[in-house]
Structure formats: C-alpha cells, structure tokens
C-alpha cells in the first residue's frame, strides 16, 4: 500500500494476527478500500489555507469537526495549522478504526 509506515504495519499485524491466512487477505482487501492515505489528508488540509477548511475531517468521517472547521475557516487557521502538523496521526487514527472494522467484518463472515 502507498505510504505505509512501520506504525501502520504494527497495528495491522495486531488486528489481523489472530485471523488465518485467507481471512487476512479478505480483511486486507476490505481495509485497502477504507484506508486513507496520509498524503491525501495532508493535501486536503492544505486546501484549508485557501478557503475550504475541514474537507479532511469530512473525509475521515468526523462530520461535527468538519462542519466546525468549514464554518470557522479552520478555527481561524489555528486548527488547520494544527492538522498540518498532525496529519499523519489523523490518517493513522482513522486507519486503525478501519482495520478494526475490517477484522470484525471478517469474523462475522466466519460464522
């Protein structure tokens, strides 16, 4: 997967470790569809500096934060700059949830 770092590998391993090999492949396919690229988050955050703040928050499913950022110009650009610093953590957090969901989906399909 593009731009995959060590932290992501480790939590993927943690989440998918208890599945067998076929289930891991299915879970990885589901995860790949839901995964957010950190670079995309960074670019969408940069969009906030030219007026459209909060798109990255909508994209990772935080609708409340998205509305807040959109209507306050990224909380006077302070929030946007914070997210420029934090963009990797933001993507990682969303990806952790996606991985957990993918593993849960595969476990449900097992039954």
């Amino acid at each position, binding site marked *: 997967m593009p731009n995959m770092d060590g932290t992501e*590998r*480790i*939590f*993927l*391993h*943690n*989440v*998918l*470790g*208890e599945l067998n*090999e076929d289930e*891991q*492949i299915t879970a*990885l*396919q589901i995860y790949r569809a839901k995964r957010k690229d950190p670079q995309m988050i960074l670019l969408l955050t940069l969009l906030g500096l030219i007026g459209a703040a909060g798109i990255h928050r909508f994209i990772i499913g*935080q609708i*409340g*934060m998205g*509305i*807040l950022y959109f*209507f*306050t*110009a*990224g*909380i*006077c*650009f*302070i929030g946007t700059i*914070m997210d420029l610093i*934090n963009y990797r*953590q*933001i993507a990682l*957090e969303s990806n*952790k*949830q996606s991985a*957990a969901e993918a593993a849960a989906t595969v476990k*449900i*399909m097992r*039954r």
Partner: protein
Amino acid sequence: MGMSNWSETSLYRRLASAAPSPGIFRTPQLHREALMWGCALVWLGLFANLEQPGRSLCLLHALGLDFCPGCGLGRSIGLALRGQFAASWARHPLGLFALAVLVSRIFSLTFPGMRSWIQPLRNLRLSPFSLRLRRPVAR
C-alpha cells in the same frame, strides 16, 4: 492484488514475535491532538481573560483583513464553559456546538475502543439509537 498481499501476509507472520499485545483499542491513549484541544479548553475555561480584547491569533487579522468567520469562537467557548450561554451565542453562534464537538473529539481520541457515547443506548435497542446498529450477516 495477489502477490503483494501474499508478501504482506508473510511479513505479519515475521512480525508476530516482536509485536506488542493487541490491547491498543481498549487502553486510554494520550494523543497530541487531544492534549492540544484539552489545553485550549482548560485555558479558555479557567484562565483566559474574556473581557479585554487581547492580541488576536488570527491570520486574517494579521494580513489586515477585517472579516473572519472564526473570530470570537474562543471567547464564545470560554463564555459557554462559564455558563453564560446567551453571551456565548451573541459572541459566536457556533460556540456551544464547538464545545460539544471538541469534548466528544477528546473522548473518542482518549478512549478509542468506545466507538461513541451512544453505544450503551444502542445495545439497549432503543428505537432512534439502534438505527445504525450493526447486525450479523446471515449466511
């Protein structure tokens, strides 16, 4: 897909001995972002002087523009934290909303295992809350 997935799967196998235990979704976490929001809320609620206009942090003001959609939000949140809701609404209508969103954000960052505060109500299967309840797939 095929080949790359196989190689990645074997990598998980190789990492198996080195990886920490999978409790990461249950233990409380300390995120940088939650720390920032938390410090901001504590400062606004306890220490910030909301009466006098201080130096603005706003970039649009620094550039010389007068209009900014976000200005007043800090004071608004501070007033809401001190219980002055009418003054908070007058300063910036989104103050209370911002407060609620930020508090829920801090909670979801700190306790990632708890998907939302509605979850216990969803488990009770009360009508409006159980709408997005995930049901097992029948096979």
